[in-house]
């Protein structure tokens, strides 16, 4: 048992600050003295620890002292065999997870509603995705989790797959049957990976859906900066006992900065301490807030703040109650409209709005009065703006036809083609649609008439479409010739 009250990295920074070392190294602002405006804006305290790696501060690329100790403390707190502090966002943790598991041509089973960092990592390493349809709740217009039978089918159809990846939970709080999927992966000698960008709290709260590493997952990317309270862009990659952590470090170092920010690193150190010591209380409070808010919002009429009643034993195996998602369709407003009204008229910023829902992110930093403000603002919006219920968002799942690996398609010779002329071609790029946050196309997939219609529909409905070079999504890059390497 390590002493979780310790913060070795932060203490070392504090020592450097008090030693008043004369800096003839980078960063050139020299503890803020060289950039007065920046120091005024961010504060002297902050700039005085924006330092470079040095003897007493260890080095993230090759940690042997205080960073290593801080990572060991984190590993213990999360129940992992090894924890890596990450400074390139959870995107970098996801990337490292994929790159250290898969090589060119290897297959991975994953839900279609993966974060695009997963598919981008495949562009880098040449792995081939085998997508599983996340079921969709048509009433709410959200993607759910993968049903066990559909994962099992994919495993049986692709026995040579190297890994299974899940979201735990999804943005909306939906969890799959993690222990059962883990057993399936183990039985078929596949690595079990988890994107837990929205799941830090699962490791510390009581009575929450099971956290992946605790259920025996091999690797997990955990966004500490979301529910864990660390600084934006800081994150962690957790590894189980069967993963060669030294190899993972080599992979991380391929793309990781050699000037890792100590502001980010110390925020991970301090947040880990806070979670280890107070996590249970913190997430008890957050859960209480969420339950209260949900009850009050459901009392307003028309709004639907959904929760555990969605659990169906399969595509919704469990639900993360701290996620306060509110369906707005019966108020006659799109989620994105409510999102805008909250921001513009009520000075309330929620995490996102999609066609049918808003998501309010609750955390340790919330206060009762702010929860009351959110509830009352929703009440006032209903009073002022309620309309007839609009047509439902039809987000039918289109099974992708993967022709080339994302890497092959991405690096192929390609021709920019008007959208309507793309039918039958193979896309060399992504088309993401928010909502519902599921890729319409990933590199290497065939463009069908149905997909073109879907892109037009999503554009008309005001979804945000991202990915292609042509930012108006009127043209797509279509593969015209494939190099031999894929």
């Amino acid at each position, binding site marked *: 048992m390590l002493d979780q009250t310790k913060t070795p990295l932060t203490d070392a920074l504090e020592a450097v600050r008090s030693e008043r070392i004369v800096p003839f190294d980078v960063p050139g602002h020299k503890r803020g003295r060289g950039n007065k405006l920046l120091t005024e804006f961010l504060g002297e305290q902050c700039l005085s620890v924006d330092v470079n790696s040095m003897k007493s501060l260890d080095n993230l690329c090759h940690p042997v002292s205080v960073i290593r100790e801080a990572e060991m403390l984190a590993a213990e707190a999360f129940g992992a065999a090894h924890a890596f502090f990450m400074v390139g966002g959870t995107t970098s943790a996801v990337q490292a997870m994929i790159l250290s598991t898969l090589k060119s041509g290897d297959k991975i089973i994953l839900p279609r509603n993966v974060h695009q960092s997963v598919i981008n990592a495949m562009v880098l390493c040449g792995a081939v995705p085998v997508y599983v349809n996340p079921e969709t709740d048509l009433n709410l217009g959200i993607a759910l989790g993968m049903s066990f039978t559909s994962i099992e089918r994919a495993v049986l159809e692709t026995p040579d797959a190297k890994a299974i990846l899940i979201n735990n939970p999804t943005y909306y709080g939906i969890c799959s049957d993690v222990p059962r999927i883990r057993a399936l992966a183990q039985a078929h000698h596949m690595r079990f990976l988890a994107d837990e960008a929205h799941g830090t709290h699962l490791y510390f709260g009581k009575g929450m859906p099971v956290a992946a590493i605790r259920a025996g997952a091999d690797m997990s990317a955990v966004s500490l900066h979301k529910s864990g309270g660390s600084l934006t862009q800081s994150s962690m990659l957790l590894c189980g006992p069967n993963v060669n952590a030294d190899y993972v470090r080599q992979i991380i170092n391929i793309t990781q900065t050699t000037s890792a920010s100590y502001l980010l690193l110390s925020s991970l150190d301090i947040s880990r301490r806070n979670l280890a010591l107070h996590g249970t209380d913190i997430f008890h409070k957050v859960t209480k807030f969420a339950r209260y808010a949900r009850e*009050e919002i459901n009392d*307003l009429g028309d709004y639907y703040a959904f929760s555990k009643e969605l659990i169906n034993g399969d595509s919704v195996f469990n639900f993360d109650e701290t996620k306060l998602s509110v369906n707005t369709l019966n108020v006659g407003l799109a989620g994105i409209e409510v999102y805008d009204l909250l921001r513009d*008229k*009520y*000075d309330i910023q929620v995490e996102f709005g999609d066609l049918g829902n808003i998501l309010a992110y609750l955390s340790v930093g919330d206060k*009762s*009065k702010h929860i*009351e*403000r959110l*509830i*009352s*603002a929703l*009440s*006032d919006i209903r*009073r*002022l703006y309620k309309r007839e219920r609009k047509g439902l968002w039809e987000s039918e799942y289109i099974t992708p036809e993967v022709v080339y690996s994302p890497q092959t398609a991405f690096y192929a010779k390609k021709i920019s083609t008007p959208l309507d002329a793309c039918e039958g071609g193979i896309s060399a790029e992504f088309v993401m649609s928010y909502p519902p946050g599921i890729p319409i196309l990933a590199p290497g997939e065939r463009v069908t008439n149905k997909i073109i219609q879907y892109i037009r529909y999503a554009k008309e409905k005001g979804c945000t479409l991202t990915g292609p070079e042509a930012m108006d999504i009127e043209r797509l890059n279509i593969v015209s010739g494939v190099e031999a390497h894929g």
Partner: protein
Amino acid sequence: MDDLWFSEYHTPDVRFSVRVSAQLHQEQSEYQRISVYLSPEFGRFLTLDGVLMLTERDEFIYHEMITHVPMAVNPNIRSVLVFGAADGGVARELCKYDTIETIDIVEIDKRVVEVSKKFMPHTAKSFSDPRVTLHIMDGLKYIRHNKEQYDLVIVDSNDPSGPGEVLFTKEFYGGCHNALTEDGILVSQHDDPFYLKDQILLRRAHVRCGSVFPINKVYQAHIPTYPTGHWLFGFASNTLHPVNDLDAARWNALQIQTRYYNTNLHIGAFALPNYVEEALQKDE
């Protein structure tokens, strides 16, 4: 006497200080730090999170101006809802009207009520009036669940950065609109107009009232212990104009004893300095 002073920063560069002869009470409640001091000039005074709320010497000005102005415009007011007002001063003034039947007071911090009862008995005396009902809860929650209709809503809130924050929001004014009868009046305190940070709050409160009520006016009073000593209130209604609908003769016939308010002052209070009028019109 020891050289003890209570100081409040009215801006980061302006400090208002009162000599203190004793600190009578200090506690941290669930919501804020509550202190009571004794001073040679102002008698006892109450502070919340270091912000002066009321003093024995000048509280009458604030409490008279936030109650008698609407009461003189509509003497038929029967039911009143008051937010904040934990010190009881608003209730004390309202209780001077025999015609008022119910006074609901909504305050989030019951400790402020208890401290006021103990240390400010003159202000808090009306909590025992049978017409007064105290609801200890969040103001937004109360107004969201409220099904009653009130003839008058008074927002006696303090600092918008403290627990009173909710009482400055658009959602709150929307809720007040729902809770008022057709001829209902909303009176709320609007801060001082002089310091820029306060002027921003004033404008925001004014615009928010205006987005909900067609009649939306501002009036003033001199309160020595509040920042700049020049304090503003908002008067908002669907139907009643604060000056045109003033029934001075009827109010004077009630023979209510006041030390600051009178019906001539009522009219004058709505005549604002030019820079204040300009500030109010900026966002309109």
